Each structure stands twice: as C-alpha cells, then as structure tokens.
C-alpha cells in the first residue's frame, strides 16, 4: 500500500495540478531570512490574472477585515480530494502548454527578471497529500520548468509537530541587450581584445632618434613628433587626429610612435564594434536550500536551515586608466552559503529567541585583468598594458542574537523586552601586489625593470630613490604593509524596552537601543621595501608617477624638511625628506596635495532613546505619541556626532462612519557637532587646511568660498571644493528638518465595494547647507477600489501619483585663463563644438559665489491599474492592465561667471548650456488576458496573452549606438546603449489538468 501511495505521489509530483490556491507559494519566516516566496512572473505574488473558480456559497460568507476591507471570495472547494487505501488524501494539478511570441527579442526591460521565451512551457504543478490519521502531509510544487526563472518547493511533515522544506529557485537578471562586446573572455577574469597592439620602443631616447630619422620636420623632446601613414606630425592636435582619442598619447614629454597595421587603434575598435552584433549581459541566481522546523515541547521550538546560492554571469562595469575610461564586463561567479539555526521559547509570560547565523560569500573570480588596447605602448605606463581589478573578496559573517520578553502582570500589566546581538563580518583575501602579476608580465616583456618619474619623496639619484624605482620592489605582496586584507567589522546591538499600562486604556513604553559597528580593520598603504607611504598612481597603472611619499603628516600644517611623521608600528625611514607643502606633495600626486594612504577603519555608534504612549479614546479610536532621540557617533567623517529628535503623533479611528482612518505626523530635527570638511587629512599624507574660523574670516574678506591651504588664496587645489569649502554640506551629515504626514483611509462604500486612499507628504530641508542638497520633498497620493458584486465578477482599480523634488546648490568654479580656441560663438561655429570651455583644466580656478549653480531634480510618477474577472457562462475571463509613467526632469541655473570668466564668451556658452537636461522618461503598458475554457470536470484550456510596451528616454545613453566612435574623443568608450524602447507580446496555450 505504501508503495502504491508513493507511486501516486510521484505521479503527482511529475504530472500534478493547476494551482488551486495562490500561485506564488509563501515559504515565509517573517522573522528571519529571505526566500519568502517561490514564484515567477506568470505565478506572481500579486493579484493573478488567471481566473479561478470561486465558490458561490462562499460569496455569502465574505466578511470584512477589522479595517473594513472585503475578504476575497473563497475558492471552490466542492471537489473532494482523491483518497488512497493507505489513508492519504491528495489534490493537485498541472498546467502545461506552449508559449509563443517575441520575448526572445531585444527587450531587456521585459526580460529583466523573467524568462518567457518561445517553446513548450510547464507553467505550474502542485500536489498536496494529507494523511489525516497521523497528521502527516506532503506538498510539492513548481513552475517555469527549465527556464531561468524556474522554482520548486517540496515540503513534508506533521501538522503541529515538524516540517521539512526544500526549495530551488532561479532568478534571471538581464542588465542589457545592447551590449557591444569588444573583449573576448567576458564572464571570466581575463579580458582581451585580440586587437594587435602596436609595438613601441621602450627607450625614450631611441624613440626620439627613430622619430627624428623619419621626420620631415624637426623633432625634439620638447617638440615631439608623431608618425602616421608615413607622415610625421608635430603636434598633439595631429596626434589626436591620428588616433581619434585623447588621453592615450604622450603629452609631449615622452614622444611615441605607433607602427603596424593597427596604427589607428580607435579605428580598429570602431571597425570591431561595427562588425559586432549587440549581445546580452545577464546573470542567473540559482538558490536552493533546506529548512527543518520542529515543535520540541509545548514551549520550545527549533529550526535550522542551509541555503546555497550560485550567481553567475556578467554585468556592465567600467575601467579607467589615466584620463580614459570605458566599459568592460565584470564577471560574476559567486557562491554564498548560509547557515541558520534557532530556538524559540514561549509560555504565557515569557518568550525568548536565540538565533545563530553564518554566511560565507565566495567569489570564484576575484581578480580581473583587462588587456587594454588604449593603454598600449604608452611610455607613461612604463610598458604596462593590463589593468588589474581586485573584485569583491570572499567574506564571512556570523551573528548570534538573543531576544527576551517577559510579561509583568503585576507591574501595571507591563512587558519587558531585551534584545542582544553580536555579529562579525570578516574578510582576509590575499591582496594584489601594487604591480600585479599580469602587469609584471607586461613589464618583463617590455624589458622594464626600473620605473621612472618623480622622486616620490626621495632625492633623485640617491640610493633610496633608486631602490624605490625598482619594479621588483613593487610587484610582490612584500611591497604591502600586509599580504592579506585582515578586515573585520563587529556589530553589537542592545535593545531594551519596558511598556506599562497604568490604566487600561493607556500604554506607555520606554525604549533604549544601542547599535554599534566596530571596525577593527583599516589599512595603511606602506611599502616596507622602499620606506614609502603610497600606492601606484592612477590606481596601479601609470607607474611613472608613484602616488607615494615618504613620511606622513596627517592633519598638520605645512612642515619643514625632514619633519617626517611615521605612524606607530611603522619603521623609521632613513633619509626622509618629505616636505609637507602642497607643492612637494603634488609632485607625487596629480590629484591635489594629498596622497590617500590610509584606509580608514570607520566605526559607528547609534543610540536611540524613546518614549511612547498609546491611548484609547474609544473602543475604536486612539491617539499615540512618541518621542525619540537618536544619537549617532562615527569617526573619520565630517561630523563626529549627529543627533536627531523625532516627534511623532498618530490618530487611529476604525469607526469613522463607514471608514477607517489612520494618520500620523512626524517632525524630525537633526543637528550635529562641528562640520569638519577636511576629512582627507585623516585619509592621507596631509591636507593642512584652514580652521573653520579662518575660512569664514577669509570668505568675508575676499568673497571666495574655497581656499587652498597654501596661503589662503585659491590655487590649483580649489577643485576640491567639498573638501575646502566650509559652506558645503554632505547631505547624510547635514542638519536636517523633516516633516512627514501619513494618512490612510479605508471606506466601505457599499456592501460589495471598498474604496481606499493614501497620502504621504514628506518635506525635508537642510537648513545649514549653503552648498549641497538643500531640499528633498516627496508627495504621494493613491486611490484604490475593490468591487466584488458576485462570485463570478470581481474588479479592482488603483491610481498612484507621486511627485518629488530635490534641490541643490553647487559651485563648479571657472578658470580665468583661456585656451587657444577660446569658446566664442565664432569658434563654436568654426570648430563645431557642441560645448566648450575656456578653462585650462576645467577644474581649477576660483569659485566666487557668482560661479554657483542651482539644480533641481523633479520626479513625477503616475501608475494606474485596472483588472477584472468575469464568468461568461462556463468560460472565465480575466484581464489586468497597468499603466505606469515616470518622468525625471533635471534643470539648472547658474551665476554670471559660472560658464566663463570671460564676459564675451558667456552668452555663447549659455546658448549651449541651456537650462536643463532632456527628460528621462519611462512609460510602460502591461496587459494580461486570460481565458479559461472548461473541457470537462478535470480539464480546462487556458488561453493567455501578455502584451507589454515600454518607452524609455535616458540621456545617459543618448547616442551611444550611433556615436560610439565619437566617444573616443573624450577618452570614453561606451559599449552599453542602455535600456531601449520595447514591445513584447507573449501568447500561451495551456492545458490545465486537475488530479
């Protein structure tokens, strides 16, 4: 008999039935973990378009929830389950058929999280078997078989005793289908173009000689020449014309010559892309796991689970090298193991939970080497043609959490709660050498053993300098302060609460919560082989200029020669000649007078004190109030401490005529200690800036808002505006005033009709932010309707409106020195500029208030949905339609000198700058139609159609397809054209069979 049952069950599992119940299967533990649902786009957790038979008698039993919302009409349960001789009862069904349409076309948005390609399709199966005699049950279900959004669940156990759950779930994530693959090896840790990389003499002198010998014009180190097509060009302009790109050439100090068939690298890339079809970048998450739950005694329960997720694919990524950047594909090959176990205790007075979790993340590709055609042969790269990325490191996280609650009936009907949690996040990946293995190979191939460039703190020609310039002193992990990461952040939580009911209608609660993250890691970029603090410049690629100095003077004013500061634990550096002036440090770093060498171990401590009261005005109405102080301490940030007071008032009335009203109003006020805008002094070799008082004084005197440290006037480091301006506020650290009004009304319009409305008004101001984000408002309104006139007719509708606005002030600064082709209207016409600048470097220069910009980001979103289900005789019809529209408009205005320091050019540039960016829009129509035609008692045919139209405009991707080559002109190569307009029509014919 048992065998027969098993066969039956197996048959069910394989064949099984149409979803009699909710298509999506809740697998939830609302308290811990994820994986709360197994489903897919055709079996979603939301209202399904697939009509199901409702029970006419059940319609009469429909009530309203305590809030007043109509419950649904119960599904038809008239059919008795099939019974076996062994006492098992089972139900189930299967729905399978075929999908056809254009889901396989270029419609990444449509396919982002779903796989509805053409072909046979097992949409859903489900079987449930119960054995009432001993309370055992088995449940199996699944859907989307064989697709990248398939899901399966299997559960068995004994009611009120124990259960075991197994699941497997796949989720596809399509990032783009307009990707132009330039590189081979996408999805792996090695990207190569296969394009011939031009060879170049590695000896500058030899190059110069070669160039001279071939030149028809005079070439020298001071006036380098370029050779292309047998011709010699003598200027960088010509070089640009040859190569069609900037940023890859030697800027005059190191002449270079290209040879071979791929002299014009940009053209080669362009030709490659022109011959390459757009492809897809996506990944698939495959997750499976098991969980057991057991009722141990009347008071104790326990559970344990294990899950494993494999995530594999590739996603758009980007790399930069010097002044160029372009897109590459980041390989994704992750595995995450999760272990979870817990005990729960509950009696009439006491409850307790104890939980332990362990998460282990493993990245199977933790290094990405990119063979970069645009880096080829540039002497400034020292022969390095490879960029090396250290991708996400393996990490482990452990957490132990205990929760305790005790009712105190003798203390004003009180209740005490306590939560304690301790966790640790750790990673100790092997670190990359400053010059990676792949880069070392490049150097070896080029015969480069010695770096060249600035002294990086040592006197040129000294023994220390020569030692520091050896490649061998930078291409092993011995060149690091530590060979592995040794990073660790511990988390601690203590949460205490005491609630009392001094009178029956009033409850008050006091709470205390402390959450702390303690970073025990940190990192110092220190090379013990050379005695230098620092890194490879341009993050490891441009090895000529090591971003390194000797000695550190964090936070100090400019020092004098030999006044080095060596952090504790680091050896003294003989011959240290670091001079802590901006000029000296800039020699070793092109990005300001600071060399970031200190990976800060940032810790936080958040403490909340709360007091709340809830008072019943009547049996059906209440008011509540709460006050909370949040104190937030952190290190290495602009503010060591911020605090926020939060006052919240609420009103609930569940019998407001035929309505239920819930409202709340919240007023929050965040303030903090001194705003310390020069946080980089903690990070690097020193930004000896000015104290706030001095800044304010100078601002009043000179009218400037940004200052360099080297004398109180604006020099080349004024570009670091946010680091130098006392008036700039980063919004997460800024003073903030916040008002939030929430309201939800449920109205019982008729016996069979619900109406609802929701409002939220959110108003945020940053009152102390002269520059930075100033306002952040969002208003939302929703309306919804649910109409249930009969078991055979159901209708719903909803509309949502949301408007948001962020306003910010910025100061971009302008330079006052025009370049040769000054940005005048005449030159715009002559040179065909779409935009231009008369800046020397676009960043430098002063930043008077007249340079300031204001910018608004306006969002508007409208969503409308309508759906109904109706019986047409024996045929059931279901239709769902959703319209959503999102629009983002970014506008800006600027001061009189913001576009140019030269009055004559301001108007011309204003014509180009305009006052806005093109609107970003996303409009989507989704229509699903389902018709179910019963054939007999067990079989039905389901006809399905899903039609989607999407219209996207996003200026981030404008022109990429048409104008990819032009991108080289600005040192940028984009391979992803982003989301595109799409339409998709998917038709399905399914046979439903009930067991």
């Amino acid at each position, binding site marked *: 008999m048992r065998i027969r049952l098993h066969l039956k069950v197996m048959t069910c599992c394989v064949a099984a039935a149409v979803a009699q119940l*909710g298509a*999506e299967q*809740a697998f939830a533990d609302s*308290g811990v973990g*994820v994986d709360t649902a197994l*489903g897919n786009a055709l079996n979603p*957790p*939301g209202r399904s378009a697939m009509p199901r038979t409702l029970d006419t008698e*059940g319609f009469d*039993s429909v009530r*309203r*929830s*305590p809030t007043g919302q109509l*419950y649904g009409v119960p599904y038809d*349960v008239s059919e008795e389950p099939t019974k076996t001789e062994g006492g098992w009862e089972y139900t189930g069904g299967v729905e399978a058929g075929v999908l056809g349409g254009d889901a396989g076309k270029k419609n990444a948005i449509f396919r982002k*999280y779903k796989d509805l390609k053409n072909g046979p399709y097992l949409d859903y199966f489900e079987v449930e078997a119960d054995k*009432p005699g*001993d*309370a055992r049950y088995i449940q199996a279900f699944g859907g989307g078989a064989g697709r990248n*959004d398939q899901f399966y669940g299997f559960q068995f156990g004994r009611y*009120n005793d124990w259960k075991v759950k197994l699941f497997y779930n796949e989720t596809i994530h399509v990032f783009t289908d307009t990707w132009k693959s330039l590189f081979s090896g996408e999805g792996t840790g090695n990207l190569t173009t296969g394009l011939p990389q031009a060879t170049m003499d590695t000896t500058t002198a030899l190059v110069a000689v070669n160039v001279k010998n071939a030149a028809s014009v005079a070439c020298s180190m001071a006036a380098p020449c370029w050779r292309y097509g047998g011709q010699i060009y003598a200027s960088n302009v010509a070089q640009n014309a040859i190569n069609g790109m900037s940023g890859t050439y030697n800027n005059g100090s190191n002449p270079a010559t290209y040879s071979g068939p791929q002299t014009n690298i940009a053209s080669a890339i362009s030709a490659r892309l022109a011959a390459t079809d757009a492809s897809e970048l996506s990944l698939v998450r495959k997750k499976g796991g098991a969980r057991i739950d057991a009722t141990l005694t009347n008071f104790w329960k326990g559970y344990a689970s294990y899950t494993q997720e494999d995530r594999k694919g590739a996603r758009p990524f980007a790399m930069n090298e010097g002044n160029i950047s372009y897109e590459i594909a980041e390989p994704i090959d992750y595995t*995450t193991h999760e272990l979870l176990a817990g005990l729960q205790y509950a009696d009439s007075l006491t409850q307790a939970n104890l939980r332990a979790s362990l998460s282990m*993340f493993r990245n199977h590709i933790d290094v990405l080497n990119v063979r970069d055609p645009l880096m080829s042969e540039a002497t400034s790269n020292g022969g390095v043609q490879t960029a090396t990325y*250290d991708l996400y490191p393996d990490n482990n996280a452990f*957490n132990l959490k205990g929760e305790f609650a005790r009712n105190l009936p003798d203390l004003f009907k009180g209740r005490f709660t306590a*939560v304690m949690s301790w*966790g640790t996040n750790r990673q100790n990946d092997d*670190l990359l050498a*400053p010059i990676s293995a792949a880069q070392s190979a490049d150097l070896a191939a080029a015969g480069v053993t010695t770096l060249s460039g600035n002294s990086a703190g040592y006197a040129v020609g000294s023994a220390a300098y020569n030692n520091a310039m050896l490649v061998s002193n930078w291409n092993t992990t011995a060149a690091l302060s530590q060979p592995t990461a040794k990073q660790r952040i511990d*988390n601690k939580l203590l949460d205490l609460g005491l609630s009392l009911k001094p009178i029956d*209608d009033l409850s008050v609660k006091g709470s205390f919560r402390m959450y702390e993250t303690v970073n025990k890691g940190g990192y110092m970029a220190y090379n013990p082989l050379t005695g230098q603090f620092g*890194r490879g410049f341009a993050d490891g690629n441009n090895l000529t200029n090591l971003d390194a100095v000797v000695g550190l003077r964090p936070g100090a004013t400019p020092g004098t020669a030999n006044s080095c500061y060596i952090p504790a634990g680091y050896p003294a550096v003989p011959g240290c000649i670091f001079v802590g002036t901006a000029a000296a440090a800039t020699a070793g770093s092109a990005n300001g007078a600071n060399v970031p060498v200190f990976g800060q171990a940032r810790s936080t401590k958040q403490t909340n004190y709360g*007091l709340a009261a*809830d008072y019943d005005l009547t049996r059906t109405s209440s008011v509540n109030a709460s*006050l909370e102080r949040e104190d937030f301490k*952190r290190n290495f940030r602009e503010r060591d401490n911020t*605090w926020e007071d939060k006052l919240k008032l609420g009103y609930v009335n569940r019998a407001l005529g035929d309505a239920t009203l819930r409202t709340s109003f919240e007023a929050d006020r965040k303030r903090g200690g001194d705003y310390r805008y020069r946080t980089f002094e903690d990070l690097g070799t020193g930004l000896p800036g000015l104290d706030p008082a001095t800044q304010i004084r100078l601002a009043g005197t000179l009218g400037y808002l940004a200052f360099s440290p080297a004398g109180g006037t604006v020099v080349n480091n004024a570009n670091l505006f*946010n*680091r130098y301006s006392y008036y700039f506020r*980063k919004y997460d650290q800024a003073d903030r005033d916040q008002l939030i009004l929430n309201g939800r009304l449920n109205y019982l319009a008729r016996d069979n009709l619900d109406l*609802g409305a929701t409002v*939220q008004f959110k108003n945020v101001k940053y009152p102390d932010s002269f520059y930075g984000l100033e306002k952040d408002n969002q208003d939302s309104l929703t309306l919804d309707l649910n109409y249930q006139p009969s078991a055979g007719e159901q209708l719903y509708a*909803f509309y949502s409106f949301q408007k948001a606005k962020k306003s*910010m002030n*910025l100061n*971009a600064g302008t330079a006052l020195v025009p370049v040769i082709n000054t940005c005048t209207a005449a030159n715009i016409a002559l040179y065909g500029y*779409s*935009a231009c600048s008369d800046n020397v470097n*676009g960043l430098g220069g002063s930043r008077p208030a007249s340079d300031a910009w204001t910018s608004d980001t306006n969002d508007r*979103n409208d969503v409308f949905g309508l759906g109904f289900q109706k019986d047409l005789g024996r045929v059931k019809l279901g239709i769902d339609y959703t319209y*959503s529209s999102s629009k983002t408009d970014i*506008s800006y205005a600027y001061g009189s000198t913001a576009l140019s320091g030269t009055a004559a050019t301001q108007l011309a540039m204003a*014509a180009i700058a305009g006052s*806005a*960016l*093109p*609107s970003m*829009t996303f409009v989507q129509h989704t229509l699903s139609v389902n018709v179910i035609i019963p054939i007999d008692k067990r079989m039905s045919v389901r006809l399905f159609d899903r039609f989607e139209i999407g219209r996207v405009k996003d*200026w981030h991707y404008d022109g990429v397809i048409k104008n990819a080559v*032009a991108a080289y002109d600005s040192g940028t190569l984009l391979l992803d054209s982003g989301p595109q307009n799409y339409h998709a029509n998917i038709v399905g014919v399914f046979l439903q069979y009930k067991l």
Partner: protein
Amino acid sequence: MKVNPGSSLSALRLGLAGILLVLGLCSGRAAFAEADPMAGARYVGEKKCVSCHDVEKAFFGHTQHSRAFRENPRNDVEKAVCEACHGPGSLHVEDTKDKTLIIGFDKEWGTPIDKQNGQCLTCHSGGQRMHWPGSIHATNKLGCSDCHNPMARFSANGLMKKAGITETCQSCHQQQRAEFRKKSHMPVPEGKMTCEDCHNPHGSSGKRLLKADSVNELCYTCHAEKRGPFLWEHAPVRENCLNCHAAHGSNADKLLVQPRPFLCSGCHSTTGSMGHLVWGNNTLGSVVNGDPTSLGRNNAGQQVNAGATIVSSKRMTGRSCQNCHSTIHGSNSPSGARFQR
C-alpha cells in the same frame, strides 16, 4: 563634538508635553475596561458550531488550522477547533445576537482589536511575533485578521487573506505598490521577492519593521559581496545603503535616489559638479548635430543642454561617475583608494 542643548531640549520638551497631554486626557475619563461577558462561557465543541456554520466549516476544513487542530491538537484548547480561536461558545449558542458573547475577527462583529489579537497571540506569541506589542502595526490597531484569514484558504501557506504576501501588504501599502512599477525595481512584481524578505510585519527591534539589526545588515543578506569589509571604505556606503538607494523603486538606474552624476554631486562638488558636467571641457570636440541655437526642450519646456543628446562627457554618460569609480561600494585593491580598482 559640541552638543546644541537648546535645540534638542526644545524638541524634548515638545514631545514630553505631547505625552503629558495624552496622560492628562487619560486621567479625566474612566477606563473602558469592563467585566468579560464571556467569563462564564464553556466549550460546546465543533459539532455544535457547524450545526449553524456549515458553510464556514467547508472552507475552514482546507486550512492549516483545521488540520492541525483536528489531526494533531497539542492541548485541550486546540481540540476545541472553532472555539480555540473564537472562545468558548455556550453563551453564544444561547444568544446568537449578542456580539459580546463570542469573539469575532471581522469588522461587522466588532470584537475589540486587542481581544482579537490577544486570542491569536495565545498560541502565536513569541518567535517572529515577539515584537508585535508596540510595533507600528499594533499601534495602528491592525488586527491579525487584517492580513490573515484563517477561515478559508486563499494562500498556499500562512493563511494570508490574499494569494500571496506581497498582494496582502499592497492592499494597504498602495504607494509602495506603485513604486515597484518604476523602471528600476527589485523583482517583487515578478514573483521573486516579497515584502517579507525585508520586513517583518509582526514587528522587529529595528526601524521600519526591518528584519535585521541595521539597513546594511539587511541588504547584505542578498548582496553578500558588498559586505566586505574593504581596505578602502566609502563612508556613506558603509553607513547606510539608503543614502544612495531607494529600496522600493526608482526612475534612475540601480534604484538610485537620484540620477548620476547629480547623486554624487550631493557630496562631491568637485569633478562631479555642474559646470564640469553640463558643458565642461569633456565635451570639447564633440560635434553638434544640427544648429546649436535650435536645441530641444524637455517636458518642462526648458532648453536642453547641447551636449546631452550626443555621447560626450564620460562623467555624464552611462554610469557617469562610476565610469571611473567603478568599485564605489568599496575596494579591496591596495591601489583602490579612489575606488578605481
């Protein structure tokens, strides 16, 4: 690290005043507490109940409660089946019109919400419901049966009132329902996640019913690769993912709260600042497609930037700032101080 005592104390005073006001209101009126009208009731058994409630019986028979109570009751209360939840029914049998003599879980019946919920918590206290008392849902006087309907089977598990968790939540949280329709969203509408992956509607010890001790700890549950810790940390990233991301949906890429580079400019007014981005030297050399004086306008009627319709600045196109600072969540490369490796 100076504290502004005035500002904080004023808010404190205001809050205390509000709470005292509530307390004052309380002192002036009598409590609602009354003697329990069901105090003398006794259990009558399921058969007695279904003699009238036969329709309910048919649907209830397919629920987990029914099977647990009927097939494997753990105590005498569960053996009572209907009365396990509705309370002893002898007085209700005698007077079916008096709604105080049996516990109902719908709006029509009018049983006080605390009494309804208390009945559920008789068995379901502790565990994932430990923090229900005082939670935002409890304060807003939601009943357990606002989300659950144990009288019929609408969902495969959990006795939800709708077919799924998300649909149940969205019956009130319509704003979030709409936000998940934005261009960038997590796969909730596609059935791969539910609200409960992040929130515990039964209450939690954290803010916004989140299931973890902090926002970041919650996000790391699925985005474990971003957990690090890294050699080079991006401070606001480590502090709170929501500094940059809108969890429920966004019209910008990657659930960002604002399109890049403007999001970045909120903190970095250097290379991410306006002049450099909108018209700066990065667009130098780009070719105007047509007459620059007849540029287009956006939906608000404002003249759009000339360079914006063609590929130009690497600081504007594609991932904008992340075209170079691609490891923005933190870098483990010794050379990654600026999140470029």
